[in-house]
């Protein structure tokens, strides 16, 4: 009994001492904290406070009573979601598309950064970097119009096919064709932008290392393997964790602007399903909030899971 009181006392003292140190640090760096304040306030107001909206997943939304006043319906929304075949299609598609993005799209910026680094001595680096980065600034609304224009019946793709005597193909209404367009167009749009972080990591490498390696007779591939890749590894690990945490976001903007009903079976992801449920179908906000909540819980679990695996087995720093 006595020892437990002592422990409690010593715990309280330690906590008080820690908060005292923290407060001293805050006072010491008050201007830095002041600079940080608007961002923190922004996140509290627009990200944390609205989180109370997840209550809708357990309620029957009443427009006149708002989120807090609406009556509870316990797990009725969950039953409706799990009983809806569209949800499971969207769930499967989200996982498949996101896994595809991790496997196919994630390594591309790393390869691109290494290749750009290899031509770093020439003037062409900036030209290539600009060319690769530029598509990131085109919105999916515009880009989808261009892509649909390329692949429609009279579009460039079918004209080229016709030129070689091949049969015309409706790429955007066939599941496999649409999936290929989905990955390729996203790589084209985002690879250049995503490789900036890797290029920044490479820029931090001491050039003398390469010179020393050259003197030792290491070829380009060996230099890449022994010098560039070890530096990139930790950046790649952090970005991989973030990408895994984002796995349930299959890319709403791109898919929403590109998809059509013929490829829903391949392209309808949870975000597009939520959008249609909330605004087009008669299911309502409770239903779509439930899907959103499930998505967030899975994302959260995956993020922490990936962080644990990377830090535990990969010997890299996590988040």
């Amino acid at each position, binding site marked *: 009994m006595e020892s437990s009181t002592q422990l409690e006392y010593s715990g309280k003292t330690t906590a008080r001492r820690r908060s005292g140190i923290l407060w001293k640090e805050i006072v010491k760096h008050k201007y830095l904290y002041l600079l940080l304040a608007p961002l923190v306030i922004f996140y509290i*107001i627009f990200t944390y406070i609205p989180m109370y909206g997840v209550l809708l997943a357990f309620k029957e939304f009443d*427009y*006149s009573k708002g989120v807090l006043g609406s009556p509870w319906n316990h797990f009725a929304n969950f039953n409706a979601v799990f009983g*809806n*075949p569209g949800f499971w299609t969207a769930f499967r598609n989200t996982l498949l598309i996101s896994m595809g993005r991790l496997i196919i799209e994630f390594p591309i910026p790393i390869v691109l950064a290494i290749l750009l680094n290899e031509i770093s001595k020439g003037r062409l680096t900036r030209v290539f970097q600009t060319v690769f980065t530029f598509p990131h600034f085109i919105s999916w609304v515009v880009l989808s119009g261009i892509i649909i224009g390329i692949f429609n019946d009279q579009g460039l793709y079918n004209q080229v096919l016709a030129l070689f005597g091949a049969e015309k193909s409706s790429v955007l209404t066939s599941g496999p064709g649409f999936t290929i367009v989905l990955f390729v167009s996203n790589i084209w749009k985002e690879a250049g932008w995503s490789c900036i972080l890797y290029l920044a990591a490479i820029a931090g490498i001491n050039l003398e290392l390469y010179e020393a390696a050259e003197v030792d007779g290491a070829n380009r591939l060996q230099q890449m393997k022994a010098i560039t890749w070890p530096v990139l590894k930790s950046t790649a690990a952090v970005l991989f964790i973030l990408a895994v945490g984002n796995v349930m976001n299959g890319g709403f903007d791109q898919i929403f602007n590109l998809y059509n009903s*013929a490829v829903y079976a391949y392209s309808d992801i949870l975000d597009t399903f939520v959008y249609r449920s909330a605004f087009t179908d008669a299911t309502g906000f409770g239903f779509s909030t439930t899907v959103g909540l499930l998505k967030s819980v899975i994302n959260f679990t995956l993020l922490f899971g990936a962080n644990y695996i990377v830090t535990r087995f990969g010997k890299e720093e996590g988040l």
Partner: protein
Amino acid sequence: MNKNKQTLLLAVLMLAVTTVFSGCSSDGNSANSSSAPADNASNGTGQDTSKNIKLNVSFMGIQDGFDAPGAANDTIFNNLEKQFNVTLNPVQLTWNDYMEKTKVWAASGQLPDIFPNVIAVDNQALYASWAKQGIIKPLPEDLSKYPNIERIMSLPSVTPLKVDGKFYMIPRMTYNDSSDWIMDRPILYRKDWASEAGFTSSPNSFDEFVAMIKAVKKLHPEAVGVTLENKSYIDTQFLGSFPEMANSKSWTKEEDEWIPSYDSPRINEGLKQLRTLYSEGLLDKDFAIQKASDGTSKFLNGQSFVNYGGTFSTFANVDAFHKGNPGVNLSDAVGLMSIWPASDGKRYTFAETPYWSEIYFNNKMSDEQFDRALQLIDFMASEDYSVLVKNGILNVDYKIENGKAVSLLSSDESLATKYPVTNTLNALAQWHGALYKAGKTVLNSNPDIAAWEAYDQETFKKFKAEYTPAPINFDIMLMSTPAKNKLSTSTLIDDMVNTILGEDDPAAMWTKVLKGYESKGLNDAIKEVNDKAKELGI
């Protein structure tokens, strides 16, 4: 850090925090509008309008009208505000976001005082919820003060829309009667090309229709056979086999039981026809990925033989046709095709309730505001307002000659640019279709449009006299039951598109589609509707 720097830093931080918070502020246009005194005492109907009332009104593109050059000089709109002593504050909506925006406004308590939507027929669950939750305002029991509204609300096609004995909306009438929708599923075709290929009249069967397209495509290999105004016009095809299905919300009676039309095996023939058109390369290969009006653009550019939907009542379309088909006379080249007879030998036409959308009122409005809003809408639903909107001001914009309205506008003038606010706001309470069908609209100054409208009217009369409207029971279609209300048909067109594009047998594919609807409560809806129909003796 010196004091000046500290002060500057604090000022910058305050600005940043203020910027963050400013996003949370209201726009100042609260749903509850204020009032101010004015000189007017009556609107000419003997009703008191001595106090100016501000009303927030949302409509598709309304802000564009208020921002247009000459908006301040829109005499028709200015007179309207003066007549009812109201100040209308525009709240912008677009055709692409009206549903999303309105739902968000309803959830956040920011609904405008008057707003349009399409829920009483299309999303009955939401309509009933908003009515029961006090989001939208019920109309008064006694509508005798508002004769036009009273006339509309007493129509047989409107009465099923009561919730707990009250109306919570006013239909925005398109026509006076459901059979007047005949020309709203038009089949435009190049009659010059058909004639070239040896076809001088409308086809008498689907096979003849296919033969006609194939013959034309031999002469015009670059042209598409059939294009669509938008994807939903695919249902035009059913007029020749299962006319009820041309209106995807309809129900049909089979073996003494009411079922949604899409649940009937009679849908299969139309689906098979559409599959044939697609697989034989006669239906536009891009129809599944097309944006609205893409198909009509192809038709206007001379790249398609038949178009389901479309019109030449607008200058833009006439102009596009002439640019795409230089030297071609529109009247000689384009015709309106009759659909082939169904298995009972009758040619059917499209039918719909005389309205397809509604106006709603925010329940937070005061009684005084509501009364003035109803007075305003009552006038905007009248034929007098239709005449103002479609013909302009008598002896200023048009004159009556031999009983016909003749335009007084010069070739470079138009009612749209002269009255820009009215041009965007005029359809708030009705679509003015009845005036057009009655032949009371002004003769268009553009000869092509005038000729097209005359041809359209003549065809309308012929179709109305000779053909049969799709046999739809609107009491069943508009019936409200819990399971029926939840059964959305918003994915029906998408399901049809998938069936047309698929490779398996269309009937087998449709059976699978129906399984999906069963999981969403189709059977419960059928049971509830039939039980209620028996009660009502339908």
